[in-house]
């Protein structure tokens, strides 16, 4: 009986989680269809344009020390950043879950 309600509870949690993930994906994908002529460059590029509009004489006074050599290298580094983060989160959740299971057994 107890385990039944537990499964039900887990089921509704799962449904809520899936719904939330679907919303996140939709929020990222829908703009691509709504804004048909969008460039989808960085918001920073727009800001640079705006700065130049406000103050045409402004020159950046410092350049990045190291810049990724190309868009590909840059995306590699971003992917690496996300992968390292995701790895740590996955490890942490796995560790917590394993510990919780061990406690149940005892």
């Amino acid at each position, binding site marked *: 009986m107890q385990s039944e309600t537990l499964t039900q509870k887990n089921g509704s*949690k799962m449904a*809520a*989680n899936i719904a*939330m*993930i679907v*919303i*996140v994906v939709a*929020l*990222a*994908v*829908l*703009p691509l269809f*709504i*804004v048909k*002529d*969008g*460039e*989808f*460059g*960085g*918001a*920073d*590029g*727009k*800001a*640079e*344009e*705006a*700065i*130049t509009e*406000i*103050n045409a004489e*402004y020159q*950046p*006074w*410092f*350049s*990045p*020390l*190291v*810049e*990724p*050599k*190309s*868009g590909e290298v*840059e995306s590699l580094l*971003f992917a690496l*950043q*996300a992968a390292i*983060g995701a*790895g*740590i*989160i996955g490890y*942490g*959740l796995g*560790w*917590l*879950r394993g*510990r*919780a299971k061990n406690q149940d057994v005892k």
Partner: protein
Amino acid sequence: MSKRFQLAIGLALMLILIPVSASAMHIMEGFLPPVWCISWGALTIPFIVMGLFSINKTVRENPRLKILIAMAGAFAFVLSALKIPSVTGSCSHPTGVGLGAILFGPSAMSVLGLIVLLFQALLLAHGGLTTLGANTFSMAVVGPLAAYFIFRLVKKAGGPQWLAVFLGAALGDLLTYVTTSVQLALAFPAEIGGFGASLAKFTGIFAVTQIPLAISEGILTVLIFNAIAAYGKDELKALKLFSPGGANHAK
């Protein structure tokens, strides 16, 4: 001027200014006059110092929380690597600082946020070293402060835990970029209209782009918070954040 012509000018300028197009949603390297760089940097220092003491205290009192601190930092690491398309036709990324701020308090997240920004400035030419102070202030001071106090406020008002987490993380994200807009508007007031006109312009670029992303960040933070709540009850109890049933079903 036709739209196309305007765009052509913009693109030409962009190509001249950035030979390798480094897209960044933080303030770009060299794009903030030195006086502002130093001012924002100085304003950030007290939060970093408090954060170091705060993390030290958390770890000393409860060494098992180390894994959660690592996870909070990692969450910011992942989310700030994800550049997501938005309704304005440009891309930006969430910050991921809400989770750590809710778990460990705002100043602890200032330190973790600074680490993320430093990594991106050094290796990715994303943000910048000269603008590190300003970017740390927006993403790692204002964002976490907003997330922490909104979370507390919603909980105090009797709101459910999931709503408190969602609103804290989402509004913390949004206010980060409002801060970025304020910083740019202060440094670049328009000739006609001054600060207000510039603020409207930069808010239109950064903050509006950020709205759907802020909602995403809120949802993702609820998801990870629930996962931590499900298996890390002891940790949440130690942080006085535990409510039975996890964030999703809490009263």
